[in-house]
């Protein structure tokens, strides 16, 4: 690793109301890495992503982006899909998707009109198709199912083509078929743009399939009397190798033909 890491985290601590959530987190991530994060529910994965996004500040320690301290506020080079997927409730599906382009092209009004608007709408036609929301183009988020909202949130983050993408259980509410489509979409963009991705997931399959690096968050110290006394940290940091991939593919094949065989 002679290259400067894209992102490095030094001795990060985070506590809420005095209760530590994360402690002594250290990690260097090179550009283009796809880090999947797994860990027990409530151990601080989302908190970690929130700090990478600058939504929250660490209690101690520092995060460096390209060698410089992380900006103190969210910036367009870091995209996010929240765990409780949130899209803009006052915009319809396609309006949600062209928003990033509007911000970019119309600094003053933040809004495209006429042919520019039509062009932007046409440009997202393909994306809409790939996330399966073409029939819902003109609906408001409140009129979508959970999975549809989640797909919209993912697409919205991808549209901006961020350098760093933070995904918090992005595929949790999707059925396997659509999930595969979304994997394709994500991997395609990842390769194309050499994004650096952090993705929290509870699906170990997915973690192995997508990631180049697997981070496991867990508590190293545990006081049975005071279960809250210690925070979690990165306990395993595994490069995902061939064998594991092959194993996973085997597992997948087995799983895949089951519904039909039954």
């Amino acid at each position, binding site marked *: 690793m002679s290259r400067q890491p894209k992102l490095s985290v030094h001795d990060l601590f985070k506590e809420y109301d005095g209760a530590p959530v994360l402690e002594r987190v250290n990690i260097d991530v090179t550009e283009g890495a796809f880090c999947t994060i797994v860990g027990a529910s409530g151990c601080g994965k989302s908190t970690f992503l929130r700090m990478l*996004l600058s*939504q929250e500040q660490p209690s101690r320690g520092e995060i460096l982006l390209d060698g410089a301290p992380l900006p103190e*506020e*969210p*910036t*367009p080079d*870091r*995209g*996010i899909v*929240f765990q*409780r997927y*949130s*899209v*803009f*409730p*006052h*915009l319809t599906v396609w309006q949600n998707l062209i*928003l*990033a382009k*509007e*911000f*970019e092209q119309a*600094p*003053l*009004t*933040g*809004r495209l009109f006429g042919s520019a608007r039509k062009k932007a709408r046409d440009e997202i036609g393909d994306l809409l198709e790939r996330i399966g929301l073409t029939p819902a183009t003109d609906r*408001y988020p*409140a*009129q979508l199912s959970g999975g549809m909202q989640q797909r919209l949130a993912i697409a*919205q*983050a991808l*549209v*901006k083509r*961020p350098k760093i993408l933070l995904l918090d259980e992005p595929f949790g509410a999707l059925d396997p078929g659509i999930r595969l489509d979304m994997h394709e979409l994500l991997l395609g963009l990842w390769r194309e743009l050499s994004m650096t991705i952090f993705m929290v997931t509870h699906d170990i399959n997915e973690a192995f399939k997508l990631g180049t690096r697997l981070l496991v968050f867990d508590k190293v110290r545990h006081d049975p009397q005071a279960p809250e006394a210690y925070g979690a940290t990165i306990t395993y940091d595994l490069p995902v190798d061939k064998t594991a991939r092959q194993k996973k593919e085997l597992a997948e094949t087995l799983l895949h033909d089951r519904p039909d065989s039954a």
Partner: protein
Amino acid sequence: MKLINRKPSRRLTIFLGLLPFAALLATYLIASDMRLAVNPSDKLLPSFQTMADTMSRMAFEPDKRNGDYLLWTDTAASLYRLFAGLAISAVLALVIGLAMGVLPVARAFFAQFTAAFSLIPPITVLPILFITLGLGEAAKIGLIIVGTTPAMIRTLAQSALDIPRELVIKAETLGASSWQITTRLYLPHILPNLVVALRLGLVPAWIFLISAEAIASTEGLGYRIFLVRRYMAMDLILPYVAWITLLAFVLDRLLLILSKRAFSWNHLEGDSL
């Protein structure tokens, strides 16, 4: 079925909705009859006949002094002031409320002051207001503005603060500038609340308008009520009050419809009053 789920039919809803009005009317009729039986020239609760006569005179007979049809000139004068006042209030409240909700610096600057300022009962500082704004239309409109804006600012600023933090962060990651976040996220979210604030501001606006008209004016609904108050001409006051209430009610409903049309996304869930 549980009470909370028992929805009355459309018909029953209308019937129930009319009941309290009917009860009020009936109470009035009985009380009025009783008083008129004791004293036929009682002025407090005149009969409907008397009120109708008075109103038809106000509406359809030219005034002896200047030949105007008073009800209509009063209404026009008051509505003009009301609309002008509310429109300026709305703009002010939107700008300042938005600034306070969006920009921490603006919040630091305005928060304490608007909180304190909004608590000054404007009618106590009327002389200063009149001297600052003169005695013309400006003062009347000004009193409405002074009276309704601070509360509207606070409501709007709070509603801007209530926007989920996630949405703001999302917009930032999509490359929005402060200005764009303001116009494309905060603004659409607080516009429905502006309508709510306007609806809630209708009553204070009328009250201040009437107070202002009571002090310096030669026409207007509040002026007329004030003028005949010394004679306790309830046969004119009560229908005028009913008329004001009706006007306000129509405005209120129009604003609700406007909100449902313009901000349909905000009405997808739950009922509105």
